[in-house]
């Protein structure tokens, strides 16, 4: 089963909670499970638990769960200091997951996993502006298929999420987004599996409504990855990715300085174990946005991609992740941004009952190109106006105690902070919850 489907859905849940998940995910190898930085969604199941699930039929296992979070949001509209509007917050989540498995593991040659869920969020406030966004329904769904595993392998995964969050300013319309990510891949590992080739196609449809509609995109990426294992779990690799990103609303996109692009990324490096307890991803390479119109990436740093990530498992019940990444991404408010991201995560289980998750990241983001808001970057009229530069910090901690293997109670806290050379876009947002849930 593609592990990234679980990660993707976990991200969607996180996004439903805080509307911030990009980069909240450490870029980890597909098999390393889920590493989500910042707010942690309601737990899917107790870690290491294998005695739950309803055996619907022979070889089909169903997991279900429901959880409630009640808490407080210090800054509903991500406003600058002094303008914050706070509100109590309630969130309810339901999910179901079905896979061809038994409690002891997957069965069959073709593995499938279907998951669906919904998050209901309610701001319970007397403030009129907040009441405009009191209720939000955010469904998520995912499907994963995989087969093979020897010389040939095949995988397909699709995740969908609808996301809704209050806007930056108390306007009547929320930020609503529909995101669907699908990928299909084939793997070839001839001989003893020392050499592995992966060909993957990924499609992402990202649709905004209302104000951000101009930023709706269709992203297509073809990836070819070749690796050679010089040790059983350590490989050097070559990775090439060619993308094609176009905007779904041409006229609106052009009016906001948006342009299609053909991003290319060529990287090489090392993936895998450095020691029995430490794995790493070391990648260096060339990247270019190849925007069809307007400014594009350039310069040494702008054309460089670098990633350095370490995962350490000091004990069987703990994991530490730390990493750094330098890249560029398309930006909604500008053509693109150069990003330098550092992140860290610490996960600790105690006696299979208590789960602690502590994580954070810092992003230094330099926006480039054509800006939607002309006050945030240079314009023909004001060529010397500085470009917007953000320093974004995100942190989260959660502590869940499983009273039984099917019921839990916990606490969670998240913080989002944005500092910028443009004062009006700075904010500090904190959320804290108590939560209770069942999962079986």
């Amino acid at each position: 089963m593609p592990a990234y489907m679980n990660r993707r859905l976990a991200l969607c849940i996180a996004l439903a909670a805080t509307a911030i998940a990009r980069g909240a995910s450490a870029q980890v190898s597909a098999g390393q499970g889920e590493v989500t930085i910042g707010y942690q969604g309601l737990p899917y199941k107790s870690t290491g638990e294998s005695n739950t699930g309803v055996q619907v039929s022979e070889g089909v296992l169903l997991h279900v769960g429901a959880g409630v979070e009640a808490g407080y949001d210090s800054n509903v509209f991500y406003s600058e200091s002094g303008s914050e509007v706070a509100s109590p917050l309630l969130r309810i989540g339901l999910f179901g997951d079905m896979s061809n498995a038994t409690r002891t593991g997957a069965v069959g040659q073709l593995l499938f996993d279907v998951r669906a869920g919904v998050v209901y969020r309610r701001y319970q406030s007397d403030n009129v502006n907040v009441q405009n966004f009191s209720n939000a329904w955010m469904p998520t769904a995912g499907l994963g298929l995989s087969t093979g595993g020897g010389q040939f392998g095949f995988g397909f995964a699709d995740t969908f999420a609808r996301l809704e969050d209050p806007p930056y300013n108390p306007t009547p319309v929320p930020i609503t987004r529909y995101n669907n990510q699908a990928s299909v891949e084939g793997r070839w590992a001839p001989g003893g599996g020392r050499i592995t080739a992966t060909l993957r196609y990924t499609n992402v449809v990202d649709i905004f409504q209302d104000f951000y509609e101009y930023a709706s995109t269709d992203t297509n990426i073809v990836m070819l990855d070749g690796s050679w294992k010089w040790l059983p779990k350590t490989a050097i690799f070559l990775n090439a990715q060619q993308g094609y990103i176009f905007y779904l609303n041409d006229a609106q996109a052009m009016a906001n300085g948006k342009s299609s692009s053909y991003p290319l990324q060529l990287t090489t490096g090392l993936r895998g174990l450095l020691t029995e307890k430490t794995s790493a991803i070391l990648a260096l390479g060339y990247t270019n946005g190849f925007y069809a119109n307007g400014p594009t990436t350039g310069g040494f740093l702008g054309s460089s991609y670098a990633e350095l990530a370490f995962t350490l498992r000091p004990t069987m019940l703990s994991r530490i992740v730390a990493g750094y990444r330098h890249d560029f991404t398309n930006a909604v408010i500008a053509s693109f941004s150069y990003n330098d991201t550092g992140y860290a995560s610490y996960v600790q289980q105690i006696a299979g009952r208590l789960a602690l998750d502590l994580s954070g990241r810092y992003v230094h983001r330099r926006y480039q190109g054509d800006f939607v808001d002309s006050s945030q970057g240079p314009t023909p009229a004001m060529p010397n106006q500085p470009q917007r530069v953000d320093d974004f910090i995100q942190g989260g901690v959660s502590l869940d105690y499983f009273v039984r293997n099917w019921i839990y109670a916990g606490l969670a806290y998240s913080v989002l902070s944005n500092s910028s050379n443009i004062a009006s876009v700075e904010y500090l947002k904190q959320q804290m919850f108590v939560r209770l849930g069942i999962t079986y």
Partner: protein
Amino acid sequence: MVNAKVLLTTMFVASTVFAQGPAPAPIAPPSAGGAAPGAADVSVKQRPTLTSEEMINQSRDYAKSMNDTLKRIQTLQDQAKREKDIIRLNCVTDKVVQVRVNISIAEQSMAALQEAVTRNDEGERTHEFTRLTIVNQKVLVLGAEAENCIGEDLSFVGATKVDIEIDPNIPTYDPTQPPAPGVDIERPGEASRML
């Protein structure tokens, strides 16, 4: 007086002679017709009437027979190697070694036999021929034993079971796989005071 002495001497000799008991029967020559009932025949069949030339011809037949046996056992040895039947291979190899030793002894005896024929030494000739006959019989027995060497098919105790212990610290997933696909989602930055 003289008569008395003769009588006493005669009586003494006579008593001594009769005190010895009956005389033993003469040793019979080896029976050509078979052993007496109840006794095993451990003698080697010989043809004492063979001429020198016949002995040499016979010894050559023995040599050929022993070499044929050696070749046959070597074939069995190769077969066991091909089948990777280590148990049978050990058994057959042991027979090969013994046969080679006996053939070496036989070659020495043949040389000694020819010398004895040249010297017209009948005793030596018969001795070497007897030795050759015994060695030949021993090689034939080894050949039969080699044919009966038992391999794994009869001593097979089941498939080989290999227990592997993997350090639990080593992750079960494959960390060499490429990163997960997809584009991470983020809340768009604030574009303007109105958005």
